């Protein structure tokens, strides 16, 4: 029945011509013994061998010496025989010894499903360019990230300088103006006892403000450089909290504070540092809430440690603010126009962390105000 065979034969020829003409893929047959049976234009282009040089040679020469040593060529054929198909990606070697990154698919050909393969089709694609492009892309992304981080650091430093100089200038302005005013009054013979007292009080308060700002800046540099470690000593947290609250009585603010606490609550802490934390939290509560609104301070003593909770009825915290609150200059958008460096919570957070504790901020459940909770573990009680 030659009439029926002819189209089939034609189809086979056409298919072989088609495969031979493919240039982007190396497509060739390997015998069950691993020798190359056919070769196409793509294979010649990818691997550098002409058909007459390679047909009859073992396909293992496409592998690197290390992979040949490790028996990789035999392994991939065995895998293709076992599963019908095997995919691989790796370095392959050209005729001239150069290497290229290849994507390889090997498919076993058999007469029927139970017989061993009579040949394998190997399709190889040179991915070197794509791999290089990907690596360049990755390097580029890494570079962009590094640049963005450096720019961010510059912006942060700029912001820091702007905030620090802004905050330092106000007390300096007071110092200058108060001193000049006293001098002027003196020259006019009007510097009486009242004016002297007022003038000196203003100068003192501006000097204290400057001192506090500088201490805060030094704290940040201490924390940034790792700084000296904590000096823990047994401390009554209730007494410490009460002492800090009393210090605000100068500002006629102590009446706003309600302390709910046991008689005492002892814990090994670095007292001056913890004093700083409580001072920062109370200072914030006062600063960001209307005058005369109550501020609740609660100290709870437990086996695991001591909890300090400070709740105000002020401007509160939105979710975006809460995430950045403990970062340097991370103050809330609603707090931007208030005085201060925006470092208090950053410093407090670090001090509490140094104690192995946690500091958390939340919006009051009724939505009006903020709640800060400091949890300090008892040493040895940590699990």
């Amino acid at each position, binding site marked *: 029945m030659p009439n029926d065979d002819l189209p089939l034969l034609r189809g086979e020829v056409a298919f072989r011509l088609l495969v031979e003409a493919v240039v982007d893929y190396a497509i060739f047959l390997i015998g069950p013994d691993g020798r190359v049976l056919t070769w196409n234009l793509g294979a010649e282009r990818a691997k550098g061998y002409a058909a007459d040089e390679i047909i009859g040679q073992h396909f293992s020469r496409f592998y690197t010496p290390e992979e040949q040593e490790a028996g990789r060529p035999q392994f991939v054929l065995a895998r293709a025989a076992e599963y019908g198909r095997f995919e691989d990606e790796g370095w392959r070697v050209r005729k001239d010894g150069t290497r290229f990154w290849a994507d390889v698919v090997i498919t076993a050909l058999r007469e029927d499903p139970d017989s061993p393969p009579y040949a394998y089709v190997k399709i190889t694609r040179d991915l070197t360019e794509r791999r290089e492009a990907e690596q360049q892309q990755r390097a580029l992304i890494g570079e962009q990230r590094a640049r963005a981080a450096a720019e961010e650091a510059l912006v942060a430093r700029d912001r820091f300088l702007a905030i620090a100089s*802004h905050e330092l200038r106000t007390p300096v*302005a007071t110092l200058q*103006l108060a001193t000049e005013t006293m001098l*002027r009054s003196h020259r006019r013979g009007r510097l009486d006892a009242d004016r002297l007292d*007022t003038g000196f009080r203003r100068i003192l308060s501006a000097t204290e403000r400057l001192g506090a700002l500088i201490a805060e800046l030094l704290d940040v540099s201490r924390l940034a450089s790792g700084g000296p470690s904590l000096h823990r000593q047994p401390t009554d947290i209730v007494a410490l909290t009460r002492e800090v609250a009393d210090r605000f009585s100068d500002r006629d603010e102590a009446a706003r504070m309600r302390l709910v606490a046991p008689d005492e609550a002892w814990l090994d802490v670095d007292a001056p540092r913890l004093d700083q934390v409580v001072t920062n939290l109370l200072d914030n509560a006062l600063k960001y809430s209307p005058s005369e609104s109550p501020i609740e301070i609660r100290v709870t003593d437990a086996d695991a440690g001591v909890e300090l909770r400070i709740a105000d009825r002020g401007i509160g915290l939105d979710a975006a603010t809460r995430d950045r609150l403990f970062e340097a200059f991370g103050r809330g958008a609603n707090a*931007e*126009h208030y005085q201060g460096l925006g470092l208090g919570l950053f410093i407090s957070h670090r001090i509490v962390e140094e104690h192995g504790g946690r500091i958390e901020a939340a919006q009051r459940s009724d939505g009006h105000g903020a709640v800060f909770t400091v949890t300090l573990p008892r040493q040895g009680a940590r699990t």
Partner: protein
Amino acid sequence: MTDQPTRVLLVEDDVSLRDTLVEVLADEGHEVRSAPDGAIALQELRGWDVDVIVLDIMTPVMDAFEFRRHQLAEGVAPDARILILSAGRELQRAAERIGADAWLSKPFRLLDVIETVERLADDSAA
């Protein structure tokens, strides 16, 4: 302007600086009122016509920009001259945005404040 004192409204959130400035300007014979932020300053202006408003830019609750928008929209003290005091950078640009007549960078000299307020008061009277 010889028999009537200059009326000055001072908006500054720093207590010490505010009190000192009030004293300085009152010493010069001006009638001075003060407010810690823009919102309270607006309330003050609703019942009191002023010649000069001395404004700190960054005040809580309502800053100088927002204060100025409200002040112009409501038409309170529309002829008042504006003096900006600020510790911030790019003061001139901020002052221009606010539509200020003068600006001083913190820290400033006592005489500069006094002279600027008086010059603005004279302008306002002219």
